[in-house]
């Protein structure tokens, strides 16, 4: 109850004009007030005012979960009501009063100790995957379809990497790097997406950064950024993870800290600050840490001044703005600049900032809704006729691959989805 009360002032700012509903991806699919920002704020406000007297049932938690935390509503609200923050706050309040669902709890706790439980569990899963997944005819053979209806029939899921990024010998070597005169020292935060699913993006990052005359240091004790836990309302775990990450990067004398996952860079930049900024024990450390964080697209375009090499490459590229990069961090120009300098032809899509549908845990809580959200995005991509979609977030990559596989007409080529670094 107390946790809900904290949300009341923010919720009361809403004047129920409804502007935000028009930009909400889940509202636009279901056209139901309770899955739009205005309804969500009304529900939270009622709960904060009347407590358990609101008479809400299980629908309340379901409505709260059906949000991708894309932040579009905040951008449209003339009253600056921070709806995503309210939703996160409400999810936390629910977890604190009712506990995390058992399954989700296990997952987040396990991420606390990578290389141990999570690693083990995932390694077993890596072996089991052949039983669960049907091969797909999809692009570059990397992808497989889930055959289990509970997870979403016909769903394309990414393969777990055979050797996780952080376990690779060439990556382990970078845990400690001697300081060298004239070479900026850049800490790399891999994040779960790159570690478990897309080591190739990590490898591309190493190459891009070192090619530009900087050294990349990859501290071995880093853990998950905590966003999945926080999105599910597990603030406590998110905090513990943030502290572990501070510790992991503390000892290195770093000029910058970067990551190739937009969700992680946002977490490292602002969520850490939000979680630990008021904590006297960590305040100073977290400020120092966050001030060094740059998304890899910013780092390459600005600090490391990536230059056009003048070579021309085959293929038309379009760009998808991850919510966590464009809306949450305001980074829009840098990735486009990188594409233009990469030698590929570029064509922008309609509504590039529209959410891919995966975020906020929606892909887990309601896969059907999540992939329906992506439909419009897929159509916008397909109408550019681009052969490659670049973005900067492993989550978006997973979702866009799934959606394009599903929605590309049979007689057309399925566009390839890559991290923008892979174009350089």
């Amino acid at each position, binding site marked *: 109850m107390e946790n809900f009360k904290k949300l009341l002032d923010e919720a009361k*700012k809403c*004047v*129920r*004009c*409804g*502007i935000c*509903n*028009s930009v909400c991806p889940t509202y636009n699919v279901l*056209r*139901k*007030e*309770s899955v739009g920002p205005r*309804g969500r704020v*009304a*529900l939270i406000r*009622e709960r904060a005012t009347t407590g358990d007297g*609101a*008479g*809400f*049932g299980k*629908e*309340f938690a379901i*409505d709260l979960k059906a949000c991708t935390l894309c932040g579009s509503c905040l951008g449209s*609200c*003339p*009253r*600056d009501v921070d709806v995503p923050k309210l939703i996160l706050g409400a999810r936390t309040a629910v977890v604190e009063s009712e506990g995390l669902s058992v399954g989700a709890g296990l997952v987040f706790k396990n991420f606390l100790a990578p290389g141990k439980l999570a690693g083990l569990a995932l390694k077993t899963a890596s072996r089991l995957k052949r039983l669960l997944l049907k091969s797909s005819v999809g692009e570059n053979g990397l992808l497989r379809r889930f055959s289990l209806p509970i997870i979403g029939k016909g769903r394309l899921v990414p393969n777990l990497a055979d050797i996780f990024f952080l376990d690779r010998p060439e990556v382990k070597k970078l845990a400690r790097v001697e300081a060298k005169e004239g070479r900026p020292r850049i800490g790399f935060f891999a994040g779960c997406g790159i570690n478990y699913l897309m080591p190739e993006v990590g490898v591309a990052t190493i190459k891009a950064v070192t090619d530009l005359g900087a050294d990349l240091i990859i501290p071995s004790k880093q853990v998950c950024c905590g966003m999945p836990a926080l999105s599910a309302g597990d603030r406590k775990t998110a905090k513990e993870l943030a502290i572990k990450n501070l510790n992991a990067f503390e000892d290195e004398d770093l000029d910058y800290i970067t990551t190739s996952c937009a969700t992680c860079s946002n977490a490292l930049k602002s969520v850490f600050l939000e979680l630990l900024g008021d904590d006297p024990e960590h305040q100073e450390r977290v400020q120092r840490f966050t001030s060094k964080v740059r998304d890899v697209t910013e780092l390459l375009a600005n600090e490391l001044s990536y230059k056009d090499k003048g070579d021309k490459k085959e293929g038309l590229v379009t760009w998808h703005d991850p919510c966590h990069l464009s809306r949450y961090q305001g980074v829009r120009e840098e990735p486009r600049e990188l594409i233009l300098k990469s030698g590929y032809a570029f064509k922008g899509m309609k509504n590039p900032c529209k959410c891919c549908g995966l975020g906020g845990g929606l892909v887990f809580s309601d896969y059907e809704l999540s992939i329906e959200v992506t439909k419009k995005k897929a159509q916008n991509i397909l109408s550019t006729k681009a052969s490659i979609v670049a973005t900067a977030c492993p989550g978006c990559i997973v979702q866009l691959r799934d959606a394009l596989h599903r929605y590309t007409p049979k007689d057309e080529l399925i566009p390839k989805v890559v991290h923008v670094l892979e174009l350089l």
Partner: protein
Amino acid sequence: MSLPPPIKKKLGRIFEPKSISFSKEDLLCYSYDATGESHLPDVVVFPTTAEEISLTLKLANESGFPVIPRGGGSGFTGGTLPVSGGVVISTQRMTSISIDQENLVADVGSGLLTGDLQDEVEELGLFYPPDPTSVKFSTIGGNIAENAGGPRAVKYGTTRDYVLGLEVVLPNGDIVRTGVKTAKGVVGYDLTRLLVGSEGTLGIITKAFLRLIPKPKEKALMYAVFGDLASAADVVSTIIREKITPSTLEFIDGASIRCAEEYVSTGIKSGAEAVLLIETDGTLKSVEDSTALIKKICQENKVLEFRVAKDKKEIKDLWKLRKNLSPALYKIKPTKINEDIVVPRSMLTSLVTGVQEIAEARGVLIVSFGHAGDGNIHVNVMIDKDDPDEAKRGAEAVSDVFDLTLSLGGTISGEHGVGVTKAPYLSRELSSSLLSVMRGIKDVLDPKGILNPGKIFLSPSNKEN
């Protein structure tokens, strides 16, 4: 009143499980609109066919419960508030759309968002002009029920001017088609016009046949800043007198500008007491000519700054500023009493200065903006309703504004409708014989008073005002 279980069960037989909800969460989400009031319904249903609505209305007549149509819930006068409980019919899932390019007619479901219709027709080089600033989150049904207008009304008229015919479920459950699908038609009474603006009290619109026109090729957006209200008003009168018909002619006062500036930076000069946002459209030549002429008129009337928006971004920012104005005003005071009065265009200066006199006399802040081109001004009395004295002075100021409006030959609502918030003032504008004709019409169509009771007319029994 709460619905007895047997009735809920009967409703459950009309709708598929996913199209009906009794959950407290959904009831709360369908208890409000943009007025800030909230009244819980007993049930929310999401029909996809006129038949489902028809069965619901028949049951309502048998069992005597209220039925309230609801579109996007963006109404400003409480038209969709379930003031005495009952069944909210949400049209949000009735979003069909088909466009007849040969006859320039769109056949759309009433729950379609107006903005979605506009996007769709504009891709075909066509145009559906009515543009309430809520286009992106209000529905065609809601627009018709309120006869919504917008900035373009000065040249293109309001929703009314584009409705050729309707498919409507009457309060007794009959499904009828009014009007025509042709460009003309005079057979029988014009029930289409009667239904337009009827605020969901005479029937539930399920489909609309809308007139489209070719999309103008070019347009230009200008903005002109003035140091005093009177000069801006003079510009408006001169533009009209000179027979230039801009496609929009919006007025924003200084207080509103300062408020909206906070989140869209437009670089509008400080010292601005009035801003006009003027758009012209048509062929390249006509746009150029009227832009030059408007510029000249502004210069002759002490304009502080005059600019033609140079690119899409500037156009977008200016419109965003205008569109966000209404909610942004809450930055000034927690409560906004928003009235959308209209006066004959020639009376604009008298209105604007009169309103400021009322504000001073009553000691409240009043900010104004709106569609100056057609004399429709949104007058916002800003108060803190928790301060009883200020609330009282606010109410008095509103009453004065209405008196002023009527004395200038105007009307107390140009587009937001009467709903619940303006019902107490209806008899000031309408004579008692007109009111009784209106009540008579309501009685003929809805003798049991089950459809959207408590709206327009004061009491649920519809016998007062």
